[in-house]
Each structure stands twice: as C-alpha cells, then as structure tokens.
C-alpha cells in the first residue's frame, strides 16, 4: 500500500533494491543467526566446539541429542514442563471463560476495580512472589508437584486469559444471548453449546498465550520444584552452573525447547495477528 501511495520517482534513479526488503532481511538475519549458531553447536562434539572454530560442523554428530533422549534426568524435564504447562492452560481457561463473560456482558459492583486488580497481577514481578510461594506451597505440601507450578503460573496467565477472552466476547452481539435465552436455553447449555464455539478463535489465542508464558517462565517453576516436577528450563541452568559445562548437550537441550514453540506458532499464525489486533496481549 505504501507503494501505491508513493510514486516511484526516487527509486528509478538507482538499482531496484527496495529499502523495506533490506530492513526485513537484515532483521530476520539478526534473529536467525544466533539460533543457527545454537543449532550448529548442538550437532558438534565438545572437542570441536572448544577446539576448532567452524561455521559448519566437520563431522555431524547426534550424540548430544542421544544423551538427552536416553537420560531420564533430561527427558523427564520436558515431560514435567509439558504436564504443568497443559495443566495451567486448562485451569486458566476454565476459570477465565465465565469471568470474561461476566466482564463483557454485565455491570456489577466493583467490576472495573476488580478488572484492574486482576491486571496488576500480570504486572507483578515474579521475583516478589518467589519466596512466599515457596513457603505457601511447602506449607500445603504441594512443593515439587506439577499442580503447584501450574497454580503459580495462574498468577499471570488467568488475568491475561480474562483480558484476551473479554476482548473477543465483546465482539459477539448480545442479541445472540438474548435469542438463545428466549428459545429456552439455560445458561449452562447456552454457554457450552452456542457461545464457546462462537469464540473458538479467541480461546485458541488465549490458550496460545497461556501456553507460551507458562512454557518460557523459569523463576517460579525453578523455585517451586526440586526433583519430581523439575522443568527442563531449570535442569538446563543447573547444568550451566554445576557439571563442567557440556556445551553440546546444553545447545541440544536448547534446540529441543524451541521446537514446541515453533510448531505452536506455525498452527496459530493467522490467529495471532487477530489477537494482537485487539491489542490484548
């Protein structure tokens, strides 16, 4: 569109390299080069990483990946992460759906204060909650369980889910609710049979962001776990600090944490733009 609005006067002078294309390519390069370096490193042996400086591995080895996929101390980290991320997404959406409906449809006592208070939790630094969470979950004997991390992540994911879903629900005309009630639908049946399918894209977007913020978080998940529910991200930091820096395995573990995100992003790419357009992220 910018091309239509701007006649090509200046561009005819030089060779036809367009500035926007250059900017985008430079930026994509900036993003991809560090990831490339990590991916390449995961395919090298430690001797090659430390000894020779090569842009492409001399001999490609999958030993690093084999280490991770055969050692329970490593691969259980991925399983633990998946368990609490899924739990968190399900819990967040389950409680956020009715609340978002209430905020989008009704006026009630203290609604705007409540909404703001919810949002402040999204903005609270996790570092503030690290110590009290540790004590709270220890005292109710949930320390080092998946549900503890899932509940802790609700702190910022529930407000976010409410915020996103409210935006989508506001776009659904009220007449639909009223018609359904006149037709004799009870609230529960209306909500699950009619309303939820209508805002499915919104639920998708909310689920995506809950998944994402729970997946990338480290501080709380590390504080609340020790052995049984230790997430992959915490296992990685331990390896950095303690056991003699196995760069190849560390790089391979990093690559494996990028893959789920890349897959999710590919599937929801058209919805993300829509969610962002509402300005609700």
């Amino acid at each position, binding site marked *: 569109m910018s091309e239509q*609005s701007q006649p090509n006067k200046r561009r005819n002078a030089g060779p036809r390299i367009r500035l926007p294309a250059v900017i985008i390519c430079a930026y*994509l390069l900036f993003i991809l080069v560090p990831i490339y370096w990590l991916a390449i490193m995961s395919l090298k042996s430690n001797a090659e990483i430390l000894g020779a400086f090569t842009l492409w591995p001399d001999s490609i080895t999958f030993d690093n990946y084999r280490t991770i996929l055969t050692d329970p101390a490593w691969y259980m980290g991925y399983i633990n992460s998946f368990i609490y991320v899924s739990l968190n997404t399900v819990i967040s959406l389950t409680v956020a759906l009715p*609340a978002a409906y209430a905020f989008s449809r009704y006026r009630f006592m203290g609604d705007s204060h409540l909404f703001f208070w919810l949002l402040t939790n999204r903005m609270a*630094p996790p*570092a503030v909650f690290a110590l009290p969470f540790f004590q709270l979950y220890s005292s109710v004997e949930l320390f080092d369980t998946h549900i503890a991390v899932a509940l802790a992540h609700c702190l910022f994911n529930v407000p976010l889910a409410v915020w996103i879903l409210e935006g989508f629900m506001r776009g659904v005309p*009220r007449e639909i609710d009223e018609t359904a009630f006149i037709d004799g639908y009870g609230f529960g049946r209306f909500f699950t049979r009619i309303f939820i399918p209508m805002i499915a894209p919104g639920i998708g977007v909310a689920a995506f962001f809950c998944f994402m913020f729970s997946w990338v978080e480290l501080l709380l998940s590390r504080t609340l776990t020790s052995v049984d529910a230790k997430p992959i991200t915490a296992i990685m930091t331990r390896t950095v600090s303690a056991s003699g820096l196995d760069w190849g395995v560390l790089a391979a573990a990093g690559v494996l944490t990028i893959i789920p*995100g*890349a897959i999710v*992003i590919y599937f929801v790419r058209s919805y993300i733009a829509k969610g*962002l357009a509402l300005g609700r992220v």
Partner: protein
Amino acid sequence: MTQKTTNQRAWFLVLPVLALVAFSSIIPMITVVNYSFQDSFGGNEFFWVGLEWYRELLQSERLWDALGRQLLFSSIILLIEIPLGILIALSMPKKGWMASLCLVLMALPLLIPYNVVGTIWQVFARADIGLLGRAISDLGLSYNYAQNAFDAWVTVIVMDVWHWTSLVALLSYAGLRSIPNAYYQAAEIDQASRWAVFRYIELPKMRGVLIIAVLLRFMDSFMIYTEPFVLTGGGPGNATTFLSIDLVKMALGQFDLGPAAAFSLMYFLVILLISYVFYTVMISADNDGAAR
C-alpha cells in the same frame, strides 16, 4: 459498544477467578507484608521491628544503585525497541506467503524460554566459542562481556532487542493492518509525502497498540530476571544486577526475609503506580477510539 446491563449475580461467574488469584496473590502478599515488619532468627523466631527494614533499605546504596540501573536499562530498551519495531512493521510485506513467513520467523524468539535466550546469547557472544565474540575479536576490538561492564551492558541490551523487538513489530503490524485502504487512497490524491502518511495516518491509528507495546515492554523490562541472570549472573561485579536479580539474591540466596519482603513491597508498589497510570491512559484512549 453494546450497553451492559447491571446484574450483581455476575459475581458468581467471577468467583472462581477471584478464589484462584486470591490464593496465588493475596495470601503470599500478606506473608510478605508480615515479614517486612519482623526480624527472624533461624527462620522460626520472629521479632517485631516496625519500619526498620524500610528505613534501612531507603538509605542503602545497594537498592538505589539497582533502581538506577533498572531505570536506565528500561529507558534504553524502550528507546531502541519501539522505533525499531515500528520501522520493521512498516517494512513488512502486506500479504501472501512472504508475510506469513515473516510472522512465523519473527515470532520465534518470543516462544523461546527465557533461560534458553540467555544460553543462546551466552554461546553466541562468548569470546572463545561464540560467533559474535570471535568476530568482534577478529576485528581487533577487545570484547569480553564477562569481565567488562560496558560490554556486558551492550550484550544484555542487544539480547533484549533480539528477544522482544518482534513483539513491538507484531503489535504495530496488527495496528497497520487495521487501517482501511481508503485512507491511503485519499493521501495519494492529496499527494501526501511518505512522512506525512506516516505522521498523520499510520501513527495516530497505531496509537492504541503502541500504548500497549510501551506498557508491556516497560513492565517486562522492569522485572527482567532470567536472561541477564543466565548471561552475566548480574556481573561483572554488580554491573548488570537489576532489581529482580538483587531481590532474588536477597530472598533466596541470603534468606534475609525481612529486608527482602520490604524490598518486594516497594518494588511492587512502584510497578502498581506506573501500571495504574498506563491503565488510565489506555482506558481513555479506548474511549477516544470508540467515540471517533
């Protein structure tokens, strides 16, 4: 906006959220308030000390230094990422598979766990095994983020730009996509310059998403923890010890419950104050948008 009806029973729909967030927010917060007025011995004997921790913290250079570093960091981040994000959004292809490809590739850093972001930059910037570190050294410049405070700052900032500029770009891009074509056609008829199109059409239409972008980037950079923790560990010395890193050191490293709790409360109140200002601005912007 559709008219909302008043219905106090809507509270029942909000109740689950309230219970859940109260459990994970109010109860821990009360614990924090409680600790901030007490001194502890051996973790189980407590003595009332009143406002002493607050007085001590407000006079401690450690806190003010960390706050200064934090404000400087957040300002630099906003000054770089917001304009850069807008520039990238303006440069993105409008539609077709190129646009999808750009979206997917640009969103990639956003979904990488924070500590993996730190790890990526660690192995990328190290002088001995990193591509960037080696390249800079080969140019004849001395560069070592683990020992030189300036190098550490540059590396942390470049890392954050790498990590989060895409969010600003994607938000701006979404804002740009919502501008009807008629605006551009009108501008073309008026023979508006590229700058005028940006200044009088695109920028005002992006206002809403840009406020959110500034808000998010400010908040998240203000509580940054994991990435610099993995990359520099807060060092060299205390050069990159931001507020969250300092707080976690105090709370979980030294187990100084009282001071850490007082620190937490002040930290949270600063954030609360700023977010309230932003929220008010956002709501009024929302209403302006609806009125237009």
